[in-house]
Structures are given as C-alpha cells and as structure tokens.
C-alpha cells in the first residue's frame, strides 16, 4: 500500500475542507482499502468520515425516509421502516456481500464503490478504467460478468451494488455537501455516468464532495421484489438482478418501476419498459414485450451472451411473482 496522510473529520464541513485538493473519504473502507492494498487506488490523503454524525434514519415530512450516509448496510436492511415500507431495499441489501461486510459498509460508500471487473484488479492486464488509454482486457477476453447495456468500446464493466439498484427503482435523491459549504440534491438517475470515453469517471460528484444523506420519497404503491441471480447461492455479485415495484388494480398494471443490476456500468432503468407495462393486463404477452424493449439494444461480448436471455427470464419471472398473470 502507498503511503498517505490520515485525518479524522470532526464534522461534515471539516471533512469537506480536509478533502479539498486530493483527499479521499473513507467510510467502511471495504472497497477503498481492498483497492489500496493492490495499489489500484493510491490516495495521497484519507479523510476518516466513519464517526461523522450521519448515522440516523429519519422520517421526512413528505412520508419518506432520510438515510444518513454512514448508516451501515446491516442496520438499514434491518430498520423497521425500511422492512415495512421499502422491502425491496431490505431485500437488496440482504442479498449483498456478507454479514461482516454489511456491518461495515456504509450507505454512501456502497453507492460509490467502484464499477469494476476482474481485469481492473489484475494490474498485469490492460484496463482503461485503472490506467486510461491502456485498453480493455475484458473486450475480447473473459467477460462472463460484464455489461450488455450502455457499455462502450473503452469499458464494459458493471456496477456491483445491489442496494443502488433498489434505490434506483425507488427514485432516491442523493444529498451532498461541497467544500464551499453549498449543498445539492442529485437524483440517483443523474448520479452515475456511462463509461463512454472516460470509464475512469464514474459519477458526477466533484473532488471533496461529501454524500451526507440519501432521501427516499414516500414508498410507491405495489408489491416489491428483489431478485438476484449469481454463481453461488450467497456471497457473490449479481450476474443479473432486478428490483421491481409493480401495482395492479382491477386486472391492469397501474404502475411499474424496474431497475436492474449486473447489466450496465450503473444501476439500469428504462422508463420505456415501464410505460409499456402500465395499462396492460399482467401476463406472458405484456411481460415479453417489456423484456423485448429492455433488451432492444443489448449486446453480448462472447462470455456474457447468456445474460441476454437470463435478463429476459429474470424480469419475466419476477413480474409473474409480483403481478401475477401466470398461465
């Protein structure tokens, strides 16, 4: 591990000023230290934010929840209001990592864990994300876990978070604080970037911008589900996952929210897929058209071709589970 300066922040404003220039925040450390040990991440300065008083889950006046950036994944999954009103979020969190990791992983750190792949970890291989301009080891290589939507010829990695997929379906807002004291609220749909020509830039946050909270709007109507398909039954990243919230009234779908993990450089959501479902009777026909729409521009890279039918089946099975309409 490279040497770094270390500072502990006393309050959020202090954290931002300590991070001005080249500082990196460390919360749970489960992603950052993993990468620092391999010298893939080489921060000059670490700002320890783990003791900032951002560890509460509060009710908002609108009927939603405001989650502190340092609430551990384990606590968020077990929180009574989340279990009762946002089960898709509890389920997504519980499907991620292990008990030990969830105790440490924070809400903010989970959102900002690196989009990555195994070539990113292997410093003997080219990787445009780790070393811009060096090429992508995964394109033309072993790419079983890689993206089928929104990728570029520079990078085909996927965002590994389960939690962020549920938050995307829930239209979460990410609140931040900058070094100049200003704050902003970023829709989760605007937080992440597709790889394009600069896969090393994964989100829209500025240097030293601290996530303070994640706000969930009031829970949308309907039944919730999070389904994750992976290579082993537990403690593995998603090959494909879907967070779904679907309401059915009088035999018609009245609202549908669908977000996907394992398919793209960021949690994926396509309003056109949801629009196709609304107004339809739940059933094979409607679900197939939704899956066709989702995968219209999907592209496999050899090793991950199987994800196209897998995403289709995972979506359709999940819709059958929560909206019915099985023949």
């Amino acid at each position, binding site marked *: 591990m490279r040497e770094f300066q270390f500072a502990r922040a006393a309050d959020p404003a202090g954290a931002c000023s300590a991070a001005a220039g080249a500082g990196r925040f460390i919360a749970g450390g489960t992603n950052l*230290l993993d990468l620092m040990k391999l010298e893939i991440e080489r921060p000059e300065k670490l700002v320890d934010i783990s003791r900032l008083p951002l560890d509460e889950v509060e009710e908002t006046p609108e009927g939603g929840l405001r989650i502190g950036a340092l609430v551990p994944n384990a606590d968020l999954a077990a929180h009574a209001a989340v*279990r*009762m009103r946002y089960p898709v979020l509890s389920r997504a969190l519980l499907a991620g990592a292990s008990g*030990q990791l969830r105790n440490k992983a924070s809400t903010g750190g989970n959102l900002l864990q690196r989009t990555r792949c195994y070539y990113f970890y292997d410093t003997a291989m080219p990787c445009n994300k780790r070393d811009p301009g060096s090429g992508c080891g995964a394109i033309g290589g072993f790419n079983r876990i890689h993206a089928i939507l929104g990728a570029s010829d520079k990078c085909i990695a996927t965002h590994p978070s389960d939690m962020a997929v549920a938050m995307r379906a829930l239209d979460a807002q990410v609140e931040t604080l900058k070094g100049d004291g200003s704050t902003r609220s970023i829709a989760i749909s605007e937080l992440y970037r597709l790889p394009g020509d600069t896969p090393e830039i994964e989100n829209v946050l500025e240097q030293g911008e601290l996530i303070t909270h994640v706000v969930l709007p009031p829970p949308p109507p309907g039944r919730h589900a999070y389904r994750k398909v992976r290579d082993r039954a537990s403690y593995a990243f998603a090959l494909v996952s879907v967070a779904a919230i679907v309401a059915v009234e009088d035999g018609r779908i009245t609202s549908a929210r669908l977000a996907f993990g394992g398919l793209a450089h960021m949690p994926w959501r396509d309003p056109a897929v949801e629009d196709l479902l609304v107004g339809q009777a739940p059933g094979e026909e409607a679900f197939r058209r939704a899956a066709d729409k989702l995968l219209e521009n999907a592209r496999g890279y050899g090793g991950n071709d199987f994800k196209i039918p897998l995403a289709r089946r995972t979506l359709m099975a999940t819709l059958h589970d929560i909206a019915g309409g099985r023949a």
Partner: protein
Amino acid sequence: MRLTVNGQSHDVEFDVRTSLLDLLRETIGLTGTKKGCDHGQCGACTILVNGRRINSCLTLAAMHEGDEITTIEGLGSPDGLSPMQEAFFEHDGYQCGFCTPGQIVSATAMLEEAGKGWPSHVSASLEGEMRLTPEEISERMSGNLCRCSAYPNINDAIAEVAGGKS
C-alpha cells in the same frame, strides 16, 4: 494511540497503513485471529468491534481509537470456553482449524443479530418470526469460508448453541 482489546487497553504506535488485523497479530501478539485472503472474502479475520462482527483485514487500525475490540481470545480461554467454543469442540466443527476462530467469533455475533430479529436473504418474511433453520444459519454464515468444508459440523455446532438460547 490507545486501543481496547478484550477489555485491556494498549498504547500502540504503528504505520498508518496497518490494518486492524495486522495490528492485532503483529503488534499486540494476538494471533488467534487469522489472515486468509486479506480482502474481505474469507472471514478468517472476523473480530467484534463494539459487539459487531467485521472483517479486521478491511479496516485501518487508525480508525479504531477508543473502540471495544473482541477477538477469539476474548470470548473464552482453554479452561473457560465460551458456549460456542465448547459446541465447536463437541461437534468437531473443524478439520485444519484455520477458519475456526473466525467462524466462532462470527457465529457468536450472528446469534446476537438473529436475537435482535434481523432478517436474512433467505427469511420468508421480513417482519415475521424467524427460526434459525440450517438454511438460515448457512446464509448468515456465508461470509466465513472453510477450505476443509467442515460446514455440516460447523452448522450443527451453531444450531446447538442457537437452540439452547431460544
């Protein structure tokens, strides 16, 4: 810096890059906690910080000033085994023993989590009653790998302690 480990306080000096795992093993000399992968993947390094189980390889010692740290040595001693240690003995919950300290510390904290009613990925309901079935135990212990695959006996040992508790 001052660290409290198994109820004893230690004044320690170290390179800021030191993981809590390396500090416990190399500086303080508590070698019960094992290093398997050093990347959060195996659970051999599981310890308790303020009663919660974490991977000590993926955290910096410098981040734990004032925290209450408990290692396998703090759970029991050869002549005063904890119930979980006792159960691993009785059920032969190991072969080579390398993963065992991590398994025991993890299982001890896992029972606390279950006692608080925390659901898991395999719980049928997020709100209802939860019983620690073998399936629940396996899921909740999935962060602890065993290369010798002593899983059936590990599971039995934990089930016995869980059964005694409820």
